[in-house]
Structure formats: C-alpha cells, structure tokens
C-alpha cells in the first residue's frame, strides 16, 4: 500500500467570514489519500470534517466561506488553482461524493434514471452502451434490485437505503479516482447501515478508488478504513494506520474517542463521554486546542501548539506528550 497519493491536502485553511468575526472552521489541515485506500476522517460534529470535504470540491457555502490558504492536489494538480470550468470537470468525474441524508440528496421532481443520466452523460461510454443501459448497469453495481424498473421511478417511491444506493450509483457512474463519503450511513436504519458499508468496501476494491470516509464513529472506522486522521477543532491531531491507532492511540483526544466506543464485552462499564466543549472556532487558543479538556495538560500545552511528530511507522500525532 505504498503507492503515490492520489489526493493530497496541504495546510488547508477554510474560514467563514461573518459579521461577528472570522470562524476558522478548517485551520491548517494536512493529509493524503493513497490510491485504493480508505482514509477515515474522524471527529466530533463541528470539527470541520464536512467543510474539509467541501473545500476539496470547492463547493463552499456561498460568500460566507472561503479557502484562504493551502493546496489540494489531485494527482499532483492543485485544484485550488483551477478555473471554475476546469473544476466542474473534476467534480463527479474524478472526485465524487456521497452526502449524509439520502432523503434530501435526490431531486424529488426528476426520475432516478434522469438523475443518473446527468452524471453518466458527462463521460462517453467506451463500450457504446446507451445511457439507459449504463444506468441499469451502474444500479446493478450498487446491488439495487430490479434496476430496469427503478430508473423510471421517483425518489419518493424508494426507501432511504435504496436512495442511498442510488446516490452511490451516481457517485461511481464516472469511475472516479476519489470518493468522499460524508457520514453516508448516519441517516440509514441500523439494520441496513452494515449492508451499505459492505457495498462501499466492495465498490472500492473493485473500482480501486481512494475513499475519504468522514465519520464520527470509531466503530465504523474499524470496519471500513485502512488509515485514520483524527480531526479536532479545525486541525488533524493524529494520523496513522487503523490498527496502530486502536492499539496505541497517542493523542489524549484520540484516546478519549476510542474509549467512548461502546464495546460488547464490557457493557458494565459506563460509556465514557469527553467532558467539556471544543473551543469556539472564532476565538481559538494559541496553544493546543484540546488542552482545556485534556487530563494530561501541562503549562506548555497552553503556550504553543504542538507540531506533528512521528510516533511510529506512518503514525504522527500533535501532542507535547508525544514530543
């Protein structure tokens, strides 16, 4: 798994410029995704995970949010330097994304087929199949039953799980190099979450995509990911292979997150929640952002932000304890 990274995010800063001040929602994020790898981007809601994804695709909420610094390299090309037209060629074709809520992510007034065609039509088919045939094929790939019927149906006629499969089909329709999955199973029934995760894993293997998997759930990370990047208050605080992070978490925040995953074996133990609140993103401290909530905080943690240091093979953490 030592191939070159397909997607590299370097020192990304995306801020909201509001009347009451600047909110530094993404504040220096760096990570890389290798071809055919699943990277989990993990953190609490509001830590900047989703905004990182939207920054990569350059689909930030209009006007208020802007990427002010950094690079997003897709096969070495900087997406942030591309024109709007070039960027449109990237979206859907080279980087696809699955949104959280299947109930709202399909347009209610167009048929499934219509919405698939829109994605498929952007890339000519080398095998000369019609749009309809390709739509049926791609629905079959996401294991949607009776695809011929489905393409004539409208979103409200499908269940949530089926809709999310359609969204998945749209995502893979142009065989992208990178897929971003933003909490793709959060809105699904528990019983079908697992099926969907298996499907994603299967698609990833067969298509060789790199997946950036955004979640708040370490349980899902264990099942899905090869590597993990833990994000806290706009920055990555720890990165490493999944096994390594689970066995040997270095950053106290990672430790807390892993400890809060309920395990079947020790149901007797109370679920450990992390006390306190993340810092306000409009008024970030100079030191470590987790210091307030950290059980091991020292004076130097408040004074200076710890740089990322290597703590093992491919394993880095930003913590003074590790330094």
């Amino acid at each position, binding site marked *: 798994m030592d191939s070159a990274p397909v997607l590299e995010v370097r020192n990304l800063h995306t801020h909201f410029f509001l009347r009451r001040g600047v909110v530094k929602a993404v504040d220096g994020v760096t990570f890389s995704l290798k071809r055919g790898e699943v990277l989990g981007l993990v953190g609490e809601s509001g830590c900047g995970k989703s905004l990182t994804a939207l920054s990569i695709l350059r*689909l930030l909420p209009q006007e208020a949010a802007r990427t002010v610094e950094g690079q997003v390299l897709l096969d070495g090309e900087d997406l942030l330097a591309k024109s709007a037209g070039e960027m449109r*060629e990237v979206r859907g074709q080279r980087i696809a994304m699955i949104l959280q809520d299947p109930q*709202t992510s*399909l347009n*209610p007034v167009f*048929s499934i087929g219509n919405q698939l065609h829109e994605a498929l039509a952007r890339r000519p088919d080398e095998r000369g199949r019609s749009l309809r045939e390709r739509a049926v094929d791609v629905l079959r790939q996401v294991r949607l039953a009776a695809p011929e019927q489905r393409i004539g149906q409208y979103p409200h006629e499908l269940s949530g799980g089926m809709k999310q499969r359609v969204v998945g089909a*749209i995502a893979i329709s142009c065989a992208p190099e990178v897929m971003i999955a933003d909490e793709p199973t959060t809105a699904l029934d528990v019983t079908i979450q697992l099926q969907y995760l298996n499907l994603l894993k299967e698609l990833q293997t067969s298509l060789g995509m790199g997946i950036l998997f955004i979640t708040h759930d370490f349980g899902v990370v264990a099942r899905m990911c090869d590597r993990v990047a833990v994000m806290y208050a706009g920055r990555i605080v720890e990165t490493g292979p999944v096994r390594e992070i689970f066995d040997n978490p270095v950053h106290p925040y990672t430790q807390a997150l892993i400890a809060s995953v309920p395990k079947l074996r020790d149901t007797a133990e109370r679920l450990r929640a992390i006390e306190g609140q993340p810092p306000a993103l409009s008024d970030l401290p100079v030191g470590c952002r987790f210091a307030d909530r950290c059980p091991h905080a020292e004076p130097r943690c408040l004074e200076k932000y710890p740089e990322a240091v290597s703590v093992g093979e491919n394993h880095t953490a930003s913590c003074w304890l590790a330094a």
Partner: protein
Amino acid sequence: MQRYILQRLVQGVILLVVVTSVVFFIGRMTGNPVDMMLPEDATEEDRQDMIERLELDGSVMDQFGVFIVDAVQGDLGTSIRYRQPATDIFFSRLPNTLAMIPPAMILAIAMAIPLGILSALRRGGIIDRISATIAVLGISTPNFWLGIVLIYLFSVTWGWLPSSRMGGPLNYIMPTVTLGTFLVAGFMRLIRSSMLETLDSEFVKLARIKGVSETAIVWKHCLRNALIPVLSLWGVFMGGLVTGAIVTETVFAWPGIGRLTYEAVIFRDYPLLQAVIIMDAIFILFINLLVDILYAYVDPRIRFE
C-alpha cells in the same frame, strides 16, 4: 393519475354545488332581493310583478328547487337590466375577458420568473433590492388607482394611448400593465423564496457534486421545484386574477366579464350577478383542474399519491 384527476373533478363539482347553494341562499336569507332592486317609489303592484317575474314566490326551498332545475338546463335567470338570459350576456362578454387575461399573465410571468430567480441568486444585490421595491409597491398600490394614474399620464397628459374600451393593440397596453403588475409582486416573491430554499437544498449540492453546470442547476433542478409552491398557492392567485380583472375592466371600460360583474353590482341586477358568479365558479374550477393536472406533472409526489 386518472384517479387523481377524477378526485379533483369530483371535488370541483362538490364545490360548484356548494357555491351555487351559498349564492342562492345568501340572496334569500338577507331579505327579499326584490326590495333591493326596486326603486324607492315602487308600488306594491310593481313588487308583485317583479316577484313573479323572478320566480320568487313560494317557499325558499321551492324557489331553490326551481332554481336548480333551471340551472341544470342552462337557465340561470334573466337579467333585469338587459332583459336577456344572463348566460347569453355572459358568453357574449367572455371573449373580451379571455383576450385580456393571457397578455397580463404573460407579462406577470415574464417579469416574475427572471426577477424572482435573479434576486434569489444574488441575494441582497441590486436586482434583489429593485424587485423587493417593485413587490412592496405592487402590493401597496390599489390597481384601480394604478389604472387611473396610467390613464392620467398616457391618455390625458401625453395623449399616447387610448383611455378605454377595446380596439387596436394599443388599447391592450394599459389594461395589461394594470392587471399584470397586480399579479407580479406575489409571483415574484414566492418564486424568490422557494428558489432560495431549493438553492440551499442537499439535492442541489449533490447536483453540483455531480458537476452539473450552474445554468442547468438553476433552470432544471431549481426552477421546477420552485414552481411547486406557486402552483399550490394557485387559488390565491386566482382570487387576485378575478379581483384584478373586475377592477381593471371597470377602470378601462373593458366590455368583459369583470365589467359585467361591476354593472350587475351598481345596477343591483341580482339575477345577473348570481348568474355571473356561478359561471365564474365553473370557469375557475375548470382552470383549477388544469392547474391541478399541471401540478401533478411538475411534482411526481402528487402524481402517485
């Protein structure tokens, strides 16, 4: 889909029966309409004569029975003023109204859709502010007065346009503008707010993720969704259209149904007014049915209900 149309049709017929009954009983419960229609110096003989002529003898229920039997046969009574069957007068005036409404609707739609969309796309921008001003002025200016202002400026002061009645294309300009601006404000604001809502939706986000162009996002993905509330609030616009047509035709002495309604009111021609309202109801229900079908076409969730 057929069931949906049938359902709407049945609802329309029920509504028609209700409207007809309400119209009839309002006329009878608030006193004998004859007293309203006779001049003050009328004799008891005149009164009896009129009662017979209008079939107002017998109990109210008997009268209603007669009225319904006649109505089903297409006889909605005779106008007192014109001494002709009311439906004949209605149909002789109808083409004039039907000639005026489409240009006004086209004007309203041609202004409302682009302005509504542009103000949503550039929220707080110049177009948004201008259209907000047009909207608030539009709902604040009574359109009978707007018509008079137009007549004062373009006919009286500058002498550019004919002030009233039908005739050449020039005669259409002021009534079209008067009726059109009456509708534009509501349309425009509704399209703006529903455009804003759809632009903010997840499916638009997904369309952008797919790489769909902004043009296709606005005109394909958003507009159709933005039209749904416009169609579902159609009844309100229909009310505005009828009110606007009555007032506009009155101001411009336009010999259509609206003007006929006004004449029935000022001449206290109760049978004519009653007939006009019932005929209006039939037309409105017919148009509402068409809108319901269009609604189902635009929104598949309705189609398969």
